[in-house]
């Protein structure tokens, strides 16, 4: 790989000759505006394998986060993905509906903890009986108001699936600490100490401000909540991850690859800094950061390079900037690597998405992870994935794992002139974008001023304009749509386990559930604790987690607690940045 100067000069000369005598005439003959690329050692001059790539599972993690690809196909006795854990993002309706769903899945042989989707009122800190959230209770996930609801859902998890044996994931951000406190209170009631709990709250609030939108408080006080997570989780909850950082939502919101990289890294830095500022040792908490995923696209070379660059950048940031010593502090733990992203799917000729996601699956393997045949092809139809589509997505991954032999090699592109130079290029753009945010004062400022939001909106509009001008082609959408093309449709016949009726009845039922809780709990104690919370919230240094746990025990509702905090922290409303 290390070519000496003379050799490089010779390659340069030969390349020039080839371009003039061979490439140009060919491009002219076949009328190509831009000839296909070909890469040589010239593009990675100074390449240093140990410095730039290294070995899988070791700093700088360019090739892979772990020494081996953890796909089940390679692991003795591992289930071939037939029986999914309950941990597929799931949940709807009332806690009873979700409990019954998990029980039904368990009867089918599923095991492991839940990964619950919460309805929007819960994610935004509203109770089910709030008139302003009418129509949204139990719709996009399960409704949770109080500890009672945790008690009900987790009736599906007992015995060898009890809370000290399973890991629970929750897509909760703005008030993640309040739900974690409810989980702790539930464990207490079962005699399980919080130190034995395992799980991951999403708890990545800044990307909610940037893109996903389930914020409650302004960025600054949100960071104070995050600080409480770092401090309390590190000390008392060794099995609970602090955050699951996502660039995914930022890209899906419209960001380019480079913007996603810069913004999500800036957000990660802000979180790390918050912990360090609170006096926690970087090596004590950085290993408890996880990542839930990056965005994706069909440009798979670039996506693979993106993951290689991203891993290397995070490792450098944690090591060089924060002075971490442990390698696990620098390693990105993420369940999914390169993939196409939901926004690459099309509603038109929807089965084409299966072809698209197979390409994403290949990219997943090439980037050092599992084959992410994601999402199921009917994602853009918006009725929840059908079981048939999920079957085909699983099968797609299995075909890649069991029929292609592609899992046998990690980072097959390592050392490729093309891939290494592309990785460098994307990393360079990432650092530049990150520097811009640093110059503004970091992620929080870049969100408060609307910089990130505006940039993303602009990129989304530019992408759309390219599609409309035909500069970016989407098969079946803006090209190959002539009358003689067939409109291939699908039927989805297998009944979905979520009941539509239950979903629509959930609101009234959950309102009644909450009313019953409010009637039977010790309201005086709840009131007293809420006043305590207000006092504590006003003291910047106070960690609110212990109070959240006390409030959870007394069945204080999510909104009651959030309202107190809204009063102290304010609410974030400025999201019109365009």
């Amino acid at each position, binding site marked *: 790989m290390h070519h000496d100067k003379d050799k490089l000069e010779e390659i340069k000369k030969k390349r020039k000759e080839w371009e003039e005598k061979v490439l140009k005439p060919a491009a002219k003959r076949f009328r190509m505006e831009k000839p296909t690329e070909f890469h040589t050692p010239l593009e990675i001059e100074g390449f240093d394998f140990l410095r730039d790539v290294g070995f899988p599972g070791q700093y700088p993690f360019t090739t892979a986060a772990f020494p081996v690809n953890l796909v089940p196909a390679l692991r003795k006795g591992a289930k071939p993905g037939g029986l999914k854990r309950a941990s597929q993002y799931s949940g709807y309706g009332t806690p009873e509906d979700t409990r019954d769903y998990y029980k039904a899945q368990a009867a089918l042989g599923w095991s492991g903890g839940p990964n619950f989707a919460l309805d*929007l*009122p819960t*994610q*935004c800190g*509203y109770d089910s009986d709030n008139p*302003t*959230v*009418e*129509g*949204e209770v139990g*719709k*996009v996930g399960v409704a949770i108001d109080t500890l009672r609801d945790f008690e009900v859902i987790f009736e599906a998890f007992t015995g060898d699936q009890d809370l000290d044996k399973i890991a629970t994931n929750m897509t909760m951000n703005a008030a993640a600490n309040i739900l974690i406190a409810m989980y702790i209170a539930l464990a207490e009631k079962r005699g399980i100490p919080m130190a034995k709990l395992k799980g991951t709250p999403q708890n990545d609030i800044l990307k*909610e401000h940037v*893109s*996903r*939108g*389930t914020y409650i408080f302004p960025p600054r006080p949100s960071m104070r909540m995050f600080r409480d997570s770092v401090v309390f989780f590190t000390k008392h909850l060794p099995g609970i991850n602090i955050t699951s950082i996502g660039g995914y939502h930022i890209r*899906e*919101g*419209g960001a380019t690859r480079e913007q996603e990289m810069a913004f999500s890294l800036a957000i990660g830095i802000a979180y790390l800094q918050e912990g360090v500022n609170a006096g926690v040792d970087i090596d004590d908490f950085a290993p408890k950061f996880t990542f839930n995923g990056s965005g994706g696209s069909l440009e798979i070379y670039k996506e693979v390079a993106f993951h290689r660059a991203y891993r290397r950048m995070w490792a450098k940031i944690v090591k060089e900037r924060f002075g971490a010593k442990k390698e696990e502090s620098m390693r990105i733990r993420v369940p999914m690597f390169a993939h196409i992203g939901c*926004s690459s799917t*099309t*509603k*038109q000729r929807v089965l084409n998405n299966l072809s698209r996601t197979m390409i994403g699956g290949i990219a997943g393997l090439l980037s050092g992870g599992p084959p992410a045949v994601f999402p199921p092809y009917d994602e*853009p*139809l*918006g*009725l929840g994935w059908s079981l048939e589509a999920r079957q085909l997505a699983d099968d797609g991954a299995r075909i890649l794992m069991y029929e292609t032999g592609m899992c046998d090699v990690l980072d097959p592109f390592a050392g490729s002139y093309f891939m290494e130079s592309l990785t460098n290029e994307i990393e360079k753009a990432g650092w530049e974008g990150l520097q811009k945010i640093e110059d503004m004062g970091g992620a929080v400022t870049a969100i408060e001023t609307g910089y990130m939001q505006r940039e*993303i*909106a*602009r990129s*989304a*509009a530019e992408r*759309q*304009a390219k*599609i*409309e001008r035909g500069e970016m082609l*989407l098969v079946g*959408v*803006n090209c190959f749509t002539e009358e003689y093309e067939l409109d291939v449709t699908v039927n989805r016949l297998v009944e979905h386990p979520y009941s539509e009726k239950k979903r629509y009845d959930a609101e009234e039922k959950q309102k009644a559930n909450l009313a019953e809780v409010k009637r039977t709990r010790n309201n005086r104690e709840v009131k007293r604790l809420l006043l305590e919370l207000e006092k504590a919230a006003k003291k910047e240094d106070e960690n609110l987690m212990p109070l959240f746990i006390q409030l959870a025990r007394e069945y204080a509702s999510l909104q009651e607690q959030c309202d107190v905090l809204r009063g102290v922290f304010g609410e974030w*409303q*400025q*999201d*019109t940045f*365009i």
Partner: protein
Amino acid sequence: MVMENERKIKVLIAKPGLDGHDRGAKVLAFGLRDQGMEVIYTGRRQSAVQIVKAAIQEDVDVVGLSCLSGAHLTFFPKVVELLKEQKADDVLVVGGGIIPEEHIPILKEKGVAEIFVSGAMVKDIGDFIRKNVRKAD
């Protein structure tokens, strides 16, 4: 057809409910602006009442509702209804988002002029608005 009578078409793009997916709404706001319309974007978390209030205050010709959380059957007809109550039913209401095929006729029957789904072109949405917007007196 006197030129000075022609004012820019005024559009309110709104996000009803708690749904956070605002990419489409913002893309549309930019796109329609590029086509010469005057566009106001409400931001997220608007109630039907707030949306109608803004529409009337700003005297818009068009209200564009974007919802990807499945709550469209609640919100879209409510906006139409409230506009009617305010005697502003000449305001063109269009909607977009992840709307299942079978919900489209229901929404149209309740007064939503058109539903645009994933893959819709901003140009076509603009054309639809120009063709169907109330004519300036």
